């Protein structure tokens, strides 16, 4: 750059301001080589689908929490009225005034709780009191902070209300307090509360006020929510409770303790002298596994959303839930991620929408997309099974291909329509079997069906053996439940299944009248058992057992047994027909997301593995041609820390630093081509080695030891 200045000096050149465009989420979907129309469409589909799913999850959450929230609101309402109404009764005067407290047990999935608390405080705001305070443990390291937080939330709320009103008089009245330096104590709060309630008691003529006051009654309670009780320091909590209990006559406090573990924590944190100020009532929320079951039911096992997860990805999400965090919120986040990945990476995901839209979109596929369809493995398999001239047509004629794609998409939709009702039926029949061969939860059965032909598994066989031995009333109740489910299903196939099942149920019921031949069987059974008791010889025993088996086989089946066999065979038949794994269907890639590896990488990161990969194979992160390693050999061009790491792998628990240095020197000087016996270790190499070792120590693979001089110790759990 040049300047017009004559003087020598430094000049600052500001870079020409390039307008940096802030990328919106949609812009990431455009690739250079792709036409933007399809990617835009995909993005829009993704957005609308996610909106739908989000709405659904929110409504699920609301529905599940409704009970517990309502009972909490009821608690807040009754406990205040209770404390107010009986003030002149003898018992009330005599008993010590306790602070009504709700111990809300929420389970260990702390990340999910925020949503619940938000809903709770909204509900309380609407129906019980305008004064709700939420406290997080991390904001309350000391009593001062806690009180500050409470005052801020309460009085701040009030001020914001004041500003909305146009009357000048009360404004001057109230805002006089905060202008002075507020004393941060409950006494201040008490003063404030009295002015507020007196104000709203109708002394001022404002009509607006009266309406708001009428909603909450005369003295609305002050609800303090401790969101995570376990994380509070018990000292802070104790002192706060003691202070509040001193003011309980002026300030109607209500506490809500959010407890993650068990209610016994309350006693562990508070001594008797403090807990005697509380009147604790227990509320237990729904367990997170039940929550997950509902989410699975409404989001995964349904045809209302076209997007599906395949077996492996579902397994990843479920295992994170069950093994790691129990968090439904994270599960849904995982679902969102896979949704996004699917629409981002799979160009054919344009077709992942509802039936009519999909066939419309299939009609206008571009030639490029048609080519994409042809390259789908499932479609190639489909082509291979066709007649030769059909094959040619499929591979060359775009128009014909579009027709076929529409057909196949319809089949896919039909498959899903039949799959879920049948899956539910099978689950109902097998979930009550002893030892649960096909799983207790429907999600286990679902992932089993997704991965392979379920009827070929051992579990399935044993389950059906048990089913064939089921008593009549159990079988009938199972069938009746199945019928209930099938009534929700639509479509020809389901209706047929339903009819068939109904006839079975009817036949079973008719059997009641002619169940006499049962008893004859019992008489037959006893005879071989008699002989069995007399013989103690092992050989004979075996023989009789074999005979008994034969007998059983040849035994004439009763009518009930025949019917049972027939019914179970029918179930077996529909399972084989409808519970195919989706991998067998053509075009399943359009709706099924299958990159379980990516998902795992994103959701369940392994930092130690990443460090080890970097040290073992630096090429992965530093794409430099010279780093491309050839097997186990130590390349001398690798970064020093990699060389040191690889050398240290060959050592035992204690590493002699001098030997290590020698080896390091040998490897490093290999490039220089001087293959003399003892490599010269100059100062630079020495320094490089020391730096590499201290880096390894920093990353956590070695540590200095005092056991032996000039040695370092290897760590088993390096990088933790």
């Amino acid at each position, binding site marked *: 750059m040049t300047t017009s200045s004559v003087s020598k000096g430094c000049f600052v050149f500001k870079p020409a301001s390039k307008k940096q465009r802030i990328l919106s989420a949609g812009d990431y979907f455009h690739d250079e080589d792709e036409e933007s129309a399809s990617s835009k469409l995909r993005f829009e589909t993704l957005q609308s689908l996610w909106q739908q799913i989000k709405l659904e999850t929110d409504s699920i959450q609301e529905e599940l929490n409704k009970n517990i929230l309502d009972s909490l609101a009821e608690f807040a309402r009754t*406990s205040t009225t*209770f404390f107010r109404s009986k003030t002149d009764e*003898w*018992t009330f005067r*005599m*008993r*010590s005034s*306790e602070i*009504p*407290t709700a*111990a809300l*047990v929420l389970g*260990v999935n*702390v990340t999910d709780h925020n949503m619940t608390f938000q809903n709770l405080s909204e509900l309380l705001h609407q129906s019980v009191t305008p004064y709700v305070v939420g406290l997080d443990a991390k904001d309350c390291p000391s009593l*001062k902070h806690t*009180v500050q937080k409470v005052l801020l939330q309460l009085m701040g709320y009030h001020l914001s209300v004041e500003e909305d009103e146009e009357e000048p008089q009360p404004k001057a009245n109230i805002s006089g307090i905060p202008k002075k330096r507020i*004393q*941060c*104590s*409950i006494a201040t709060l008490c003063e404030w509360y009295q002015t507020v309630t007196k104000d709203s008691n109708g002394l001022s003529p404002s009509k607006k006020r009266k309406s708001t006051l009428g909603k909450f009654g005369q003295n609305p309670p002050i609800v303090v929510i401790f969101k*995570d009780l*376990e*994380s509070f320091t018990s000292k802070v909590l104790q*002192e706060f409770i*003691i*202070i509040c209990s*001193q003011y309980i006559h002026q300030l109607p406090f209500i506490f809500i303790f959010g407890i*993650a*573990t*068990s209610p*016994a924590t309350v*006693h562990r944190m508070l001594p*008797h*002298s403090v*807990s*005697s100020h*509380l*009147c*604790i*009532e*227990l509320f*237990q929320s729904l*367990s*997170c*596994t039940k929550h997950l079951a509902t989410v699975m039911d409404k989001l995964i096992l349904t045809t209302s959303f076209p997007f599906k997860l395949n077996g492996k990805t579902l397994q990843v999400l479920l295992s*994170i839930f*069950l*093994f*790691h*965090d*129990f968090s439904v919120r994270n599960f849904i986040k995982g679902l969102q991620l896979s949704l996004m990945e699917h629409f981002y990476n799979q160009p054919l995901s344009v077709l992942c929408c509802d039936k009519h839209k999909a066939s419309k979109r299939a009609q206008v596929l571009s030639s490029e997309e048609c080519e994409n369809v042809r390259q789908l493995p499932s479609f190639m398999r489909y082509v291979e099974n066709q007649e030769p001239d059909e094959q040619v047509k499929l591979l060359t004629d775009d128009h014909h291909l579009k027709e076929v794609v529409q057909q196949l998409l319809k089949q896919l939709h039909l498959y899903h329509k039949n799959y879920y009702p049948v899956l539910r039926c099978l689950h109902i029949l097998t979930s009550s079997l002893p030892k649960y061969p096909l799983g207790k939860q429907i999600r286990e059965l679902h992932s089993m069906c997704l991965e392979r032909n379920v009827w070929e598994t051992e579990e399935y066989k044993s389950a059906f053996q048990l089913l064939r031995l089921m008593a009549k009333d159990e079988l009938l109740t199972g069938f009746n439940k199945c019928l209930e489910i099938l009534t929700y299903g639509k479509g020809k196939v389901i209706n047929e299944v339903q009819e068939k099942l109904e006839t079975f149920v009817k036949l079973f019921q008719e059997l009641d009248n002619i169940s006499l031949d049962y008893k004859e069987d019992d008489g037959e059974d006893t005879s071989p058992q008699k002989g069995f008791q007399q013989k103690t010889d092992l050989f004979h025993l075996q023989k009789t057992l074999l005979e008994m088996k034969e007998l059983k086989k040849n035994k004439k089946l009763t009518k009930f047994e025949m019917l049972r066999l027939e019914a179970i065979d029918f179930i077996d038949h529909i399972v084989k027909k409808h519970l195919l794994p989706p991998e067998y269907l053509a075009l399943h890639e359009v709706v099924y997301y299958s990159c379980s590896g990516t998902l795992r990488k994103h959701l*369940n*990161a*392994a*930092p130690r*593995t990443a460090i080890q990969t970097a040290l073992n194979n630096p090429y992965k992160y530093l794409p430099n041609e010279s780093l491309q390693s050839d097997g186990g050999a130590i390349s001398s061009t690798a970064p020093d820390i990699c060389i040191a790491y690889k050398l240290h792998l060959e050592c035992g628990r204690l590493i002699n630093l001098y030997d290590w240095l020698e080896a390091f020197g040998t490897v490093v000087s290999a490039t220089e081509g001087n293959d003399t016996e003892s490599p010269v270790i100059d100062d630079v190499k020495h320094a490089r080695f020391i730096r590499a070792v201290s880096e390894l120590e920093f990353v956590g693979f070695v540590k200095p030891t005092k056991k032996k001089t000039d040695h370092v110790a290897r*760590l*088993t*759990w390096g990088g*933790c």
Partner: protein
Amino acid sequence: MPDQTPFPTYMKDVLLRLKKQLPCRDNEVSMLLSLFGEPQHYSYPSILIYGHRATGKTFVTQTVLQELKLPHAFVSMVECFTPRLLFQQILSQLSSLYPSLDEEFHCETLNDFIRIFRQLSTSNVLDQQTVYIVIDQAEVLRDMDANLLPGFLRLQELVGGNITVIFLTEIVWEKFRPNTGCLEPILFYFPDYTKAELQQILCKDRHPEFSDDLYATYINILLGVFYAVCRDLCELRHLAALNFSKFCEPLLKGEVRESDTHKLWRSIEPHLRKAMQTVYLREVSSLQWEMMQDTKEETGYLKGLSAYTHVDLPYYSKFLLIAAYLASFNPARTDKRFFLKHHGKMKKVTFLKKHEKTSNHLLGPKPFPLDRLLAIFYSIVDSRVASTANIFSQISSLVTLQLLTLVGHSDQLDSPKYKCTVSMDFICAIARTVNFDIVRYLYDFL
């Protein structure tokens, strides 16, 4: 009090009223009055009143000061978590006495406080009367600035006016005494109420609809049950109020006559015993308890808070917790024996050190480094687990759930140490859900 009043300055009827209001505390009241002396006299600079909970320390002091209309300020230390709050509370209470006290005073330190106070006492509005400052829950003062306690102890000298500071506390003076030395206050012990005194006081607030005798009987029964565990007057009064309706039930129904004390005792005693195990311990809230009495629903349906000990944890968290428990209660040298396949035979007796012979469960959990926890974790969990970020976040979430605690400062990132804080029963229940026989791995149970 005897007829010839030792406190001639006070009106006789005031003293009588005091006596009536403060039953069973005659000695304490007269002692207090003699310590106070006449209003214009200088009193001792600081008095420390100590005694157990609910022995009437606060009540007696407050009533005496109010009835005799002595100028005083009363502050509860729990509320005053900063010195500024403490000073301002005192000053704002005194501001009604001193018209010259400006509303906009600024008082951050003890120095400011004394300066303001000195100005006040020179104004001489109070006619040299002793001003009392009562500091309730004075034990909190120990944790505040080091100059506060000694400063208040000799406030009279510092201000140069007629001031007495009264400290109320539940702990003895020995635990207060700062190591830099200070002015010793006058110590004044409030003894516990005896059983007879408790009876007398409790009987004072009888139910208006029932006779004195009946209520006395009731209190007698109540004390018979609770006196062994609880001498706290407030708590006893609370319990009396809660259970009285149940006591009256047979009377109202007409099953028992008032004079039939034995029958009344028979009907109420088991009920009170149950109350001792539930309401008294706050296992069941008093509202629920009353509700239960009203509906007459048979017991057992209400479970106490401690009955819910079950905690559902994610699968790996359970194993982490088990590993932490093992690490806390097994000596580190024995890990080899439990978790290595070829550990060689080591008999318990031979390789024991002397101090290890006592049960580790009696000594409590010991801290262990993170490395050891993970090593045990990987050897007890059956499947191969990658050491993912989720495993580490589970450890920290166990810490926030207070099932583990971080030993030492949380700044120590290098090798954090933990302790497992769960009980044996809890861990056994957890281990059972994952089919892990924890007792086999515990050194104490070999």
